[in-house]
């Protein structure tokens, strides 16, 4: 078998197996013939492991042949040649995407094996693995995307599965409300991404990364955009990355996302999903290099997020919350590294940090149990020693920072007060005016919906 054919087979396998897993699990649920737990576990294990072997195979090929970039074209989703409009399904295996996709498959596989036992006999077992399959496909597509539209496709799948998994325990209101919050931030992020993609289409004439970044291989490619164009597009991409990675001012969703089951928290918000924004910045790094102002903004945002998250992490009273903000601290540092022009160091940082955080989050439930056992054994609470940094701060400053951390910078409150509340007020007022208008036209009360009880009676009560 020639190298090219072997690459085609392996590369297609990396992409097709997650899609196949999603199809298998999704169709079974749609036709109301759900798989058993063991069958789901087998399908998941088989597809993740095979995809991982294929990805490692591609890496091996690249090392042996010395190729730094291999492209896989799976045709076009749509093409209107006479209008120069293409939505190409192009995937790239290079020094950025291959480590990231291998990392994704390793961690997703690990969490899948963990969740298989952790969620055993849970009523939502099948639902969890369906969303898991959506996430897996989204991560693989986003990691290997060779065009900005394909990356957007994976990006959206990751966002949807994240929000639905936050609401995994959907018989309670709190997880659902938190999932709504996560989804809201993701929609802002998605909108910024879509605008950036369309803007790139216009300034570069095509949506693939090669056209966007000019000639050269990652990370040495040079963008062909002007610095003004790079600043405009880059700011939109930074907004998208900030939403996805929980950078300020969007950091409020991260602790809320911990409402989901531990395996999903570990894989989404501790390891992969939270790094997807940083991955995006790495992928479009040639654009960043075209604008010093943009790089400065990235550095400032990253450092501010890191400092802010470090303060908040110290006042968290639950282990998942503390880990979430600890994770965000590192993500902030990674973003700052990218802004400073580093490329391989942030990539290595992402890989190391994701592995560590996955381990910590998966260990969190049993760690609490261990602490309880130790405390029972010694007969008292374990002492909480003040750190070196806290010792440097004066009392009032410490108190102020404590309040800041406890309120999580009040970013959510500010967004609620200055964005959500005015929005709701304006449209409620419009609704009221419409009511008056239709009442006037109808000559009587025009809304039957006013009589609908807040909690509808069930059929047996009707």
């Amino acid at each position, binding site marked *: 078998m020639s190298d090219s054919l072997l690459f085609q087979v392996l590369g297609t396998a990396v992409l097709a197996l997650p899609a196949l897993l999603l199809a298998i699990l999704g169709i079974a649920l749609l036709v109301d013939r759900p798989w058993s737990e063991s069958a789901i576990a087998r399908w998941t294990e088989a597809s993740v492991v095979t995809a991982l072997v294929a990805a490692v195979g591609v890496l091996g090929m690249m090392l042996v042949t010395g190729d730094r970039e291999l492209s896989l074209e799976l045709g076009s989703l749509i093409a209107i040649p006479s209008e120069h409009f293409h939505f190409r399904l192009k995937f790239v295996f290079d020094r950025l995407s291959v480590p990231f996709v291998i990392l994704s498959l390793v961690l997703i596989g690990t969490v899948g094996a963990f969740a298989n036992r952790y969620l055993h006999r849970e009523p939502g077992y099948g639902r969890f693995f369906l969303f898991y399959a959506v996430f897996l496909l989204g991560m693989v597509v986003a990691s290997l995307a060779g065009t900005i539209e394909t990356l957007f496709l994976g990006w959206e799948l990751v966002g949807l599965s994240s929000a639905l998994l936050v609401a995994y325990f959907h018989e*309670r*209101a709190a997880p659902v409300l938190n999932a709504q919050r996560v989804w809201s931030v993701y929609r802002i992020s998605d909108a910024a991404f879509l*605008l950036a993609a369309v803007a790139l289409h216009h300034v570069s004439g095509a949506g693939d990364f090669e056209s966007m970044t000019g000639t050269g291989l990652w990370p040495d490619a040079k963008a062909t955009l002007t610095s003004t164009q790079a600043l405009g597009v880059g700011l939109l991409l930074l907004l998208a990355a900030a939403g996805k990675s929980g950078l300020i001012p969007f950091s409020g969703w991260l602790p809320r996302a911990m409402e989901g089951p531990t395996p999903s928290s570990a894989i989404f918000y501790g390891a992969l999903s939270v790094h997807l924004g940083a991955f995006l910045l790495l992928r479009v790094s040639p654009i960043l290099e075209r604008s010093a102002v943009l790089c400065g903004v990235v550095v400032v945002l990253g450092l501010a997020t890191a400092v802010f998250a470090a303060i908040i992490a110290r006042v968290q009273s639950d282990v998942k919350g503390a880990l979430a903000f600890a994770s965000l601290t590192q993500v902030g540092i990674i973003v700052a590294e990218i802004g400073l022009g580093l490329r391989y160091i942030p990539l290595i940082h992402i890989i190391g940090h994701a592995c560590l955080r996955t381990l910590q989050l998966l260990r969190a439930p049993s760690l609490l149990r261990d602490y309880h056992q130790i405390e029972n054994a010694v007969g008292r609470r374990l002492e909480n020693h003040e750190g070196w940094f806290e010792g440097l701060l004066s009392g009032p400053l410490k108190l102020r920072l404590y309040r800041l951390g406890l309120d999580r910078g009040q970013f959510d409150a500010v967004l609620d007060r200055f964005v959500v509340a005015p929005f709701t007020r304006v449209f409620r007022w419009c609704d009221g005016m419409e009511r008056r208008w*239709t009442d006037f036209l109808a000559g009587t009360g025009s*809304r039957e*919906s006013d009589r609908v009880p807040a909690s509808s009676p069930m059929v047996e009560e009707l």
Partner: protein
Amino acid sequence: MSGLHQPWLELCVLIPVLGALVVRFTSRPESARRRSLFVCSLTLVCAVAAWQDFEFLRVREAHDPEDMMIWSIGGRLLVVDELSAPLLPLAALLFLLTHLATLRTKVREFSFARSLVSEAILLATFSSKLPWLVGILLAAGVIPPYLELRKARKPTRVYVIFMGGFVALLVLGQAILAIAPDNSGFSGVAVVLLTAAVLLRSGIAPVHCWMTDLFEHASFGTALLYVSPMVGAYGLVRLVLPVAPTWVLSAVALVSLVTAIYAAGMALVQREARRFFSYLFLSHSSLVLVGLETATPIGLTGSLSLWLSVSVSLTGFGLVMRCVEARTGRISLLNFHGLSSQVPGLAALFLLTGLASIGFPGTAGFVGLELLVEGVIQAFPIAGAFVVIVAALNGLAVMSAYFLIFTGRPHSSTIDLRIRPSERIAVLILTALILIGGVFPQRGVDTRYRAAVRLAQPHADLGRSHLSKTQETGSNIEPAVALTAHARNARPAQLLDPASARLTVPPQP
């Protein structure tokens, strides 16, 4: 114009008419439902056959074969072209699915006979190109919902005022257009009147209140079928787009965009599901109008694709709401209902159709929205950003409704609320359409692109002739004012390229 191999178009209209007569005199509601299902299925077969027959002929438009005409005049009046060919099966499918998903608890409220008459009028409208015939059929379409409101003793004044205004504007516009000489000021007035009429029928703000009022008082099925095929958009394409000057198109695009934003915001603050749905639908249908007014091949292709995907996905979305209503009564959005554990199939379809409507990747709406954003940004760069914001707001609204209706609290019922076989069939058909349309969109986009090119042609010609005239006379008038929004961005040499049979989008620098 070529002839189809069989009189499919006449059959599409005649079958539901005859079926309505039969169903009207069927006393038992369950029998009426079964017969109406048979009639709808037969109509769908004819509509699909018409579409496929037309595709096979590979012509610009086609009519029924003259030697096989059932009506002596019908064969000449009813035509199918690239725009309407897929709209026929779409309309027939929407009626079939709505009838299929009508549960026994609702068969006495929902008039199958009246619905079949509506189907016949709708299919006749989609098979018409002559402006006066389109006008008559659009006007006739307002009658069945009015009859239902009357029969159910519901308030009709709001509906009558708005739809009466629609019919009046339509008649006045057509009359002036028929008697006024070309290029006179009167023809401009007629275009404005016709534009106002179709905007009213499309529910563009601030004349949208009839739509929420209809959802308040009519049965959900009737209201859904009245709005979901987007007849207003069809009226716009047939009556306004061929004759409208650029400023009218720009104005329509602007008010449509404002409506899309307004309706998306209103959907987020609604406290009851039907009103929520009506605003959500309005937001989406307004986006379709925005795309139509770009008059560029890409924008039009996106708009026409979105038209189909939004009709299918939001009809599915509405049908799920209707199924939930059949179990719980009208749905409040003030509290969580937690129905997911009882009706997981409906919950999944609700989510899927909602995501398809907002253009989520992998669903039928994705490609349409991508093309629409691309086309709108080409034509009106700032407006493109607002289209994206509307899509984001609609995404929030869909997810919020999903969480409120299907999650948030445990729910138990002593009665089996699970999905019924007929509902399951409707669910599976819709799911298949949404996913297949999302994964293999190329064929659908090709047909929409061909229709879009035909629609953009008059504007390209208009731009070309005006540009030539301006160059000949040395006028200082900016030629772009006569061009379509797209043509503003095109280089004159490309617009005037005689080898080009249609308007071409200039390659990006």
